[in-house]
């Protein structure tokens, strides 16, 4: 919302600087976005008159003008084609500065010296979107004669400060100059000047011009209307145009400008119909019939439904109420009789209609927030006054006012003690009444309670809490002295799973992994790129109704695709090694389509490329599980996951519980992601980690007795896994195996084809006493027998 301060000054007497005004309003809740001085440092731009204009003798596209500046005549060369002798124009004289700091001096154009420059509105600092279409491409020509040589800035109303506000959705009453004046008066405790509206001359009778207004729906709370005759459509006077431009509105023509002016000033959207175009010269306000259609002002044909409120004449719809008028009844150059509409429509219906058609207009955005029905009359009267004032038509006597608004006055109760408690500051009862009165509440003290009658424009105030806010904000939150929380000590802590997460993140960081963060929604193509079959559980995903696009349309059921995407991006940028992990949610629906909230499972994903290999990822996971105190880890080959290399992938178990899988990414999948490096990745069920975690550390006394180390080497079939041999060694170790380390795997001349020799160093230790040779020999024997029987191993001598 743009608030030009001169306009505001018509309703409150401003005696402070724009900055002070902005600060004060900020502290009472109107958030200031910016303060702009419109002349932007313009100097020495004056009114001039073109006394002569002729083509430049040496240049086809230039004109040479003799410009009267009052005290002297200057020669000025221009390229503009819209000028004629006698035009009054803004002239940047020698030494002038334009908006944006451009200085103007004398310049020679093809042999003719030009002493100054004729200005367009752009050059004077107006933004393109408010400059009237007709004058966009030329020098600005004044609407009438102004004193020659006088400062043009004043006539163009550029000596103006404009404050831009962000108005919150609960305060539609502030979306007008008058509304902000009311807010300003309340904030500073100033007098508010009420709009004084009077029409000097009225002719004829409205009933001779219309056959009446019929409101056939309860969704139009009020319809107030007047007629203006002998209308002469044309441009508005300069003051009206510049006033609108300063408020961010582009001038169009006098009648439309007046309706826009009143909307900005009072907040009530008005509509002007060409009365002669109305069939039967009547207005019917009703719900549309299903299938009816209308071409709106923007030239689009719209099919209406029963929820849409429309304005119709005797035969057909002529406007979508509160949203946009119809093309047929639009004000045109030939319009001579105008019917002005000031109406109040159900905000809910306007909102639905506007949303349905994707049509958001100044009018609809105001109606959908809610407008005081009392404004209808004031706004139409104000428009009539202005039309008369600028000589655009003659106001016809009488009005038609269909008023169905029932809003009875609402009286709320405020307990002053409650306000003091909630704000935490001692504000006296009388002071509270004072603030509410400034806000136009009718407030008085009754038996220690404040009774406040809510003004008609404050539908947002519903209860005591709202009144407390009103008191608080006018008092000023910045004046509230801060007080520490009191009460019993409370223990601040993270939930268990978050605590575990942090421990895991520490481990990953220590191992050199970077933590990454990716979107919760992904493209459905991800599941194809991961080579997941049609019946893969990952494909049971939730779709958004209104995604930002295909790439963000499904809630992820795996973290792997995001990991692959980011590895791809890093590789493409020439980064030769990445170690990354993410802990995040996947979304598993209970059923599809979704009826309840999905299960949000936490997953740890790992992705690595560069110098690291499978065993690096494996050990990383061992470190994580180790930190979590999860024991009995087992790794089983996994050859069936379509995203992974069939011979280089493992599923991790703790005991019999699967924790997830990891391995080398399948070359086909790498190709789908256009990744050149080998990628090792893993997906681990983090909820499972949390469930099995036992990170409590208990001290175990250091061993008192020496360890015994025995080496053992066996020849086994190539298919026998080292992990299986280790399990057998442990099984036969009588609980005394402290460590097993693999020190050699040998394939070659010394062993048969398809066989390998595997050598371990085994450390035995007892906490009870020194191990005797008897025990060690027994264990060794049993171990060898076990390896032979279970794995067909042969002891290698």
């Amino acid at each position: 919302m743009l608030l030009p301060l001169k306009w505001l000054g018509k309703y409150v007497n401003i005696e402070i600087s724009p900055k002070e005004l902005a600060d004060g309003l900020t502290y009472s809740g109107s958030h200031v976005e910016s303060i702009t001085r419109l002349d932007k440092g313009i100097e020495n731009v004056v009114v001039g008159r073109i006394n002569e204009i002729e083509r430049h003798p040496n240049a086809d596209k230039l004109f040479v003008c003799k410009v009267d500046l009052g005290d002297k005549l200057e020669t000025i060369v221009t390229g503009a084609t819209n000028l004629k002798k006698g035009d009054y124009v803004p002239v940047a004289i020698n030494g002038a500065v334009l908006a944006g700091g451009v200085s103007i001096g004398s310049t020679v154009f093809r042999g003719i010296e030009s002493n100054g420059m004729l200005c367009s509105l752009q050059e004077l600092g107006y933004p393109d979107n408010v400059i009237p279409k007709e004058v966009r491409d030329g020098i600005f020509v004044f609407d009438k004669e102004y004193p020659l040589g006088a400062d043009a800035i004043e006539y163009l109303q550029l000596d103006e400060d404009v404050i831009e506000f962000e108005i919150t959705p609960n305060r539609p009453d502030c979306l007008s100059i008058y509304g902000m004046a009311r807010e300003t008066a309340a904030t500073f405790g100033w007098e508010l000047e009420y709009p004084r509206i009077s029409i000097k001359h009225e002719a004829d009778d409205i009933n001779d011009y219309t056959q009446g207004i019929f409101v056939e729906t309860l969704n139009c709370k009020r319809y107030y209307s007047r007629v203006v005759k002998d209308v002469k459509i044309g441009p508005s006077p300069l003051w009206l145009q510049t006033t609108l431009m300063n408020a961010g509105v582009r001038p169009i023509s006098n009648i439309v400008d007046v309706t826009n002016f009143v909307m900005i000033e009072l907040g009530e959207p008005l509509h002007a119909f060409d009365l002669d175009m109305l069939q039967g010269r009547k207005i019917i306000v009703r719900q549309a019939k299903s299938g009816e259609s209308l071409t709106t002002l923007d030239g689009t044909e719209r099919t209406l439904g029963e929820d849409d409120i429309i304005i119709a004449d005797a035969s057909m719809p002529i406007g979508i109420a509160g949203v946009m008028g119809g093309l047929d009844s639009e004000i045109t150059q030939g319009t001579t009789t105008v019917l002005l509409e000031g109406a109040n429509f159900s905000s809910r219906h306007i909102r639905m209609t506007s949303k349905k058609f994707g049509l958001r207009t100044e009018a609809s955005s105001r109606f959908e927030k809610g407008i005081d029905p009392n404004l209808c009359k004031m706004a139409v009267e104000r428009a009539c006054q202005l039309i008369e004032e600028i000589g655009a038509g003659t106001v016809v006597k009488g009005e038609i006012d269909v008023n169905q608004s029932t809003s009875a006055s609402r009286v709320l109760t405020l307990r002053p003690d409650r306000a003091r408690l909630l704000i935490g500051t001692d504000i006296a009862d009388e002071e509270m009444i004072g603030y509410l009165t400034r806000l136009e509440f009718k407030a008085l003290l009754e038996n220690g309670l404040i009774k406040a009658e809510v003004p008609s424009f404050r539908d947002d105030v519903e209860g005591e809490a709202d009144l407390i806010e009103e008191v608080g904000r006018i008092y000023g939150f910045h004046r509230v002295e801060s007080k520490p929380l009191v009460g019993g000590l409370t223990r601040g802590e993270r939930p268990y799973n978050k605590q575990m997460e942090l421990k895991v993140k520490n481990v990953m960081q220590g191992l050199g992994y970077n933590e990454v963060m990716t979107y919760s929604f992904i493209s459905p193509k991800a599941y194809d790129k991961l080579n997941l079959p049609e019946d893969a559980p990952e494909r049971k995903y939730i779709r958004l109704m209104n995604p930002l696009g295909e790439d963000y349309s499904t809630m992820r059921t795996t973290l792997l695709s995001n990991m692959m995407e980011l590895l791809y991006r890093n590789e493409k940028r020439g980064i030769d090694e990445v170690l990354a992990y993410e802990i995040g949610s996947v979304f598993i629906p209970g059923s599809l389509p979704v009826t309840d909230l999905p299960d949000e499972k936490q997953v740890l994903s790992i992705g690595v490329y560069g110098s690291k290999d499978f065993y690096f990822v494996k050990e990383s996971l061992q470190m994580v599980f180790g930190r979590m105190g999860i024991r009995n880890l087992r790794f089983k080959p996994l050859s069936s996951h379509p995203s992974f290399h069939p011979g280089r992938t493992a599923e991790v178990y703790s005991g019999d519980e699967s924790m997830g899988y990891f391995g080398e990414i399948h070359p086909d999948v790498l190709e789908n992601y256009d990744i050149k490096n080998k990628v090792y990745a893993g997906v681990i069920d983090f909820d499972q980690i949390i469930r099995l975690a036992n990170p409590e550390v208990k001290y175990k006394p250091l061993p008192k007795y020496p360890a015994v180390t025995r080496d053992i080497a066996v020849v086994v079939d190539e298919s026998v896994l080292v992990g299986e041999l280790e399990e057998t060694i442990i099984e036969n170790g009588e609980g005394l195996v402290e460590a097993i380390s693999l020190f050699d795997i040998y394939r070659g001349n010394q062993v048969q084809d398809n066989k390998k020799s595997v050598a371990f160093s085994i450390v035995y230790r007892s906490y009870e006493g020194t191990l005797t040779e008897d025990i060690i020999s027994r264990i060794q024997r049993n171990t060898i027998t076990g390896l032979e029987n279970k794995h067909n191993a042969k002891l290698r001598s």
Partner: protein
Amino acid sequence: MKDRLEELRDSALKELQNVVDMADLESLRVKFLGKKGEITSILRDMGKLSAEMRPVIGQMANEVRSEIEDKISEAKELLKEKMKEAKLATETIDVTVSTEKLVRGHRHPLIATAEELEDLFISMGFKVVTGPEVETVENNFDALNTPDNHPSRDMSDTFYINDHILLRTQTSPVQIRAMKKYGAPLRMVSAGRTFRFDNVDDTHSPMFHQLEGLVVDENISLANLIHTLDIFVKELFGDDMKTRFRPHYFPFTEPSAEVDVTCIKCRGEGCPSCNFTGWSMELLGCGMVHPKVLETCGIDSEKYTGFAFGMGIDRITMVKYGINDIRMLFDNDKRFLDQF
């Protein structure tokens, strides 16, 4: 014999001058002091001397012997020192060489910031609570007193899964869950992912992050809220930081306020990044919990009052580290992450 001893001493001392290593020194020792050494042989010949001369020469021989011994052990120490220095000199390495064998992993700056914020509140006795990213319309809007016509409910603002399930647009629904679960009194914070229908640009992302806080107890006031957030801002950005509470509108708090914080760049002097206001705008939103919200969660709004606040973690992370493009947070470029 006396002359002989003196000669021996002089020649021993002279030879000592020329010793360069331990082997030289050892052979010198053997030559003069060894079992077959010269001093020993003189002492052996003492029998041939007269009784008067024997003690004189004996004493002198012992003196010469111990003088040579002392000199030798002195020289030995010196030699040892020299050898150590020579060894150290040969072991010199180029300390400017980098092998880059170790890597340190890095925490994501936004997630680390979120944890840092949580830690600040944990130290003030707040419990960390989590909630789901996919939420009900009920928890995300209805229970938070959001009017039916509030623009935030639009499909152009909020991602929907169906008419009653959506991607949460704020962390505030966790308040509802926490109040229903724990009742009053309560002090909680919750950080997490939030979603709004915003196209990606340098300041917008359809997924972003918030931290939500809530205190419900008897006699909780706006003055308490101001105090709590003041402390928080000072802890986060420094003791010279000021806050400015501006009345604002949120459906679930009444009164509501937005909090501006002293511009982190210019510390309040005024600079282009704060539009010369000296304030970083809209860093926090807050207010006193609306009685309707308390009642919806089964808390007696006459007995208990409360305050709530929320902040954008992405924004705070960006301000803290001077990141000017939010997309960097979601891009996961190693060169970016390695900086934190």
